[in-house]
Structures are given as C-alpha cells and as structure tokens.
C-alpha cells in the first residue's frame, strides 16, 4: 500500500508500511463470528427470505441493560464485530494514541430515527428522546468502539452508501501504512431493514420483487436487503510479527474512485469500477494477471452486476479469475457489505476455498465471468480483490494477499 504517489501516478510511488490483518469479526445473517459465518456462506439460504435479518444476535453480551436502550442496532452490530475482531487478534495492546477506528455506514441509526419521528408526530417534540442524536448519528458506531477501547487515535466514519465498508477498511489501512497508527479497527455496520428503508428501496425499484438474491443470474431482479457488520484488526506488519500475532492476510492495496456520472446508475461499461480495481492493483504493485479471485459487489440488481462484470472483464480479460458474490446468502447489507465481504475474502485465504454464489442458476449470457456457483471451489493462492460500489457513484476496491506471499 502506497503512502505517496510518483510524479506520474501510483507507479514510482512511496511504499508504506505493510499492513497485517490479524483479527476478524462479523455479524451476519449467514452467521455470527467467522466460523458460523463461513458455514453459512457455504450453505444455500432458505428460500423466500425477503429480508436477510440477523437472527440470534444477543446484544446483551456487549451492553448492559441501560446502555442497550441507548444504542441503535447498527451500533450494537459495529461494537460486536469490532470487539470480536479485537479478541480474535490476541494481545494487540497498541499505544492508545496510535490506535484508531474507521467504520463505514450508509445511514447510521435509521430505526431510532424512524421511531422517534413517530413519537414526534404522535406525542409532540417534548417526548422525543434526548438520546436521538447520539443514537442516530452515523459516526456513533466508530465513536462507541473508540470509547470502549480507550483508543485515542483517529476515530472516523466513512459514509459512501454501499461502498462504505470497503472504504472504511481502506481508510483504516492507510493509517497503518503511513505509520500514524500501530493498529486500527476498520469495518462497516448497517441496520436499515425498517419500514421506511424498505419503502424507499422498494420505490426506487432497487429491491428484488421476487425476493430472491441471485447475483449475475439472467433472471436477477434487484437486491434483497440485509444487515450486519464486519470488522478487521489491521496492524503494522513488523509489529504484528514481533508480537507473534497470527497474520491472516496482508492488506496490500486499496483504491477509491467516483463515477461522477449518476446518483444511482453505474457509469457506462463500469468505467469507474474498472478504474478503481486498476488503481487498487497499482497501489499493491501487482499486475491484474496475478489475481486469483474476486469477491464481487454482485448485488443482484440488473445494472450493478452487468457493469461490474464489464469492468472485471475490462481489467482481467475473459474469463478472468473466479468471481463470487456472497450476497446470494447475505443479501445486501449496504454500508456493512464491503466489510462483511472483506471478512469473507480473508476467510477464503484461511480456508483455501471460494464460497459459491448462492441463488445463481443461469449465468446471464451477457456476463463473461467465471462465477463460482453450486458448491465451494478450491482457491488457488494469490492476490484477492474485493469490490464495493455505492449509490452516489462511489467505488472501492481492496487487494488482499496470503500472508506467505
């Protein structure tokens, strides 16, 4: 990962400190915690789940009864994933002034906002909770994590719709690469399956009317709304090695670009997405041909999957490396998605397997990708790319390497 560019761009730029991934945390309908999550990814989802809600999540494992009433579900997810990741990483023990948190989210505490607006209408302004603002603000998840850990370095939130989880991790990693931080928790969280969220996405015709998430399928008709959180502990590589940490992967590159085209539709030919993947590879100093797997954004909307496929083909050729989208299982968890998928990509390195794209039955004939479907496929070790794209034209890509490369 670079910390400065050369005169002509990333080529000849300044390599930063290496970034190790040492801890994983995930809250998903596929499973809570990396083990169950992975099992869920490799098992086809129950049919007709129009909302992919996280079930079996007991927030009281992280919050006392009083605190629990004062944190939105999205913050509960964020804290759970972050603390899970930190526990997984072992004795990180950074200098608190050089430890940070960067989380992504699409909207923040939507269910809290919605409930309080109902109270405003029904009971008047004097009954609106004094906790509304700190519960709904998009930065609450990151703030909660830093407060609980006492980490006093940068604590920020990236709000780039469905690309936020990927950008959160990228921004976290850059803080390690520059040497500003010894350790940063990077991730994303979202809990927006609410009546207003559903109505909004439905009326913009983004949601699947069939209720089936089937990325890259010829019959795909929109995404299925999901929720959850993902978090990675990112550490200075040398420091992680010297403390004897188990290193899952290296976060070797990341990029962020904008389509500057349309508020919801991707740019023609997936040009912004292609530029993003190319830049992430340049950041990692790797050629496209080296890439062994792409964890796609693959939302199951007609436009996203076509544009992403075109972008991947442009950068990697035909058929290119094996591609998967876990959204067949997880649905689309918006600002959490990129972080949840980064956890999946790291688990591909750990398990040496690519989870299948659930829901995919008939590959769209216009999509010329090698999409993994049916059952998990053995992964040939090499660099991985994980993509996220968001309304607003935001593109994010991460490049992950196996630790021994």
């Amino acid at each position: 990962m670079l910390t400065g560019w050369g005169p002509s761009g990333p080529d000849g730029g300044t390599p930063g400190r290496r970034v190790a991934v040492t801890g994983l945390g995930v809250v998903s309908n596929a499973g809570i915690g990396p083990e169950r999550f992975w099992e869920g990814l490799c098992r086809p989802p129950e049919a007709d789940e129009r909302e992919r809600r996280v079930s079996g999540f007991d927030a009281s494992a992280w919050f006392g009864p009083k605190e629990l009433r004062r944190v939105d579900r999205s913050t509960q997810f964020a804290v759970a994933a972050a603390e899970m990741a930190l526990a997984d990483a072992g004795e990180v023990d950074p200098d608190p002034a050089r430890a940070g948190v960067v989380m992504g989210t699409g909207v923040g505490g939507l269910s809290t906002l919605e409930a309080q607006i109902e109270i405003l209408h029904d009971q008047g302004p004097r009954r609106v909770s004094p906790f509304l603002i700190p519960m709904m603000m998009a930065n609450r998840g990151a703030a909660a994590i830093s407060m609980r850990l006492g980490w006093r370095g940068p604590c920020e939130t990236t709000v780039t719709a469905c690309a936020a989880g990927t950008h959160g991790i990228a921004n976290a990693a850059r803080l390690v690469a520059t040497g500003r931080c010894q350790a940063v928790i990077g991730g994303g969280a979202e809990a927006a399956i609410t009546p207003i969220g559903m109505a909004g996405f439905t009326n913009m015709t983004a949601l699947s009317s069939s209720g089936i998430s089937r990325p890259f399928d010829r019959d795909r008709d929109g995404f299925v709304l999901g929720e959850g959180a993902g978090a990675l502990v990112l550490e200075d590589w040398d420091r992680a090695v010297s403390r004897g940490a188990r290193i899952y992967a290296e976060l070797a590159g990341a990029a962020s670009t904008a389509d500057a085209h349309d508020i919801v539709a991707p740019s023609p030919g997936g040009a912004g997405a292609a530029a993003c993947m190319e830049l992430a590879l340049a950041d990692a100093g790797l050629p496209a041909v080296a890439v062994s797997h792409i964890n796609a954004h693959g939302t199951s909307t007609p436009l996203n999957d076509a544009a992403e496929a075109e972008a991947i083909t442009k950068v990697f050729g035909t058929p290119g490396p094996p591609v998967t989208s876990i959204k067949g299982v997880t649905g689309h968890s918006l600002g959490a998605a990129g972080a949840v998928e980064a956890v999946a990509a790291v688990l591909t390195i750990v398990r040496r397997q690519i989870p299948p794209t659930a829901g995919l039955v008939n590959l769209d004939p216009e999509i010329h990708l090698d999409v993994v479907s049916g059952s998990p496929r053995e992964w040939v070790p090499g660099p991985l790319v994980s993509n996220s794209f968001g309304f607003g034209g935001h593109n994010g890509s991460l490049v992950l390497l196996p630790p021994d490369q």
Partner: protein
Amino acid sequence: MDNEAAFDKFKSCTVEVLQVKPEQVTPDARFADDLDADSLDLVELVMALEEAFDITVDESELEGVETVEQAFSLISSKL
C-alpha cells in the same frame, strides 16, 4: 394520589429509565453518584415522569436538583 403511591410511581419510572434496582431509589440517593445518571438520563427521566403524572416540568425547574428527594418534591408540588 397519596404520597406513598406517588413515590412508588416515581420509583418505578426511575427504575425503568435509569435501569437501577428499586432499593437504590432512596430519598437521599444522588442521581449522578448513586444512580449513574448523566444529564441526558435526567432529561429522559423527567419525560417519563411528566408522562406518568400528567404534569409539565420546565427545564429551569431542574436546576439544583441532585437527589431523589429533591426531584420527588418537585413532582409532588405539581400534583
């Protein structure tokens, strides 16, 4: 409503909003030190009390209110 019934109602609001045990809500208990309540907690408690007793408490009336006894007298004076 007699004083005892009013205090019981006051106590149950306090227990619910501040998530404390009923026996902690004694007249001399201090909100900040004994009941772990910050200023926003108190705003929420006052809302619950307004609702429960069908009264209105102005923000300025809360100045100097630090103990359960002080808060309860304020509520009682409005019944």
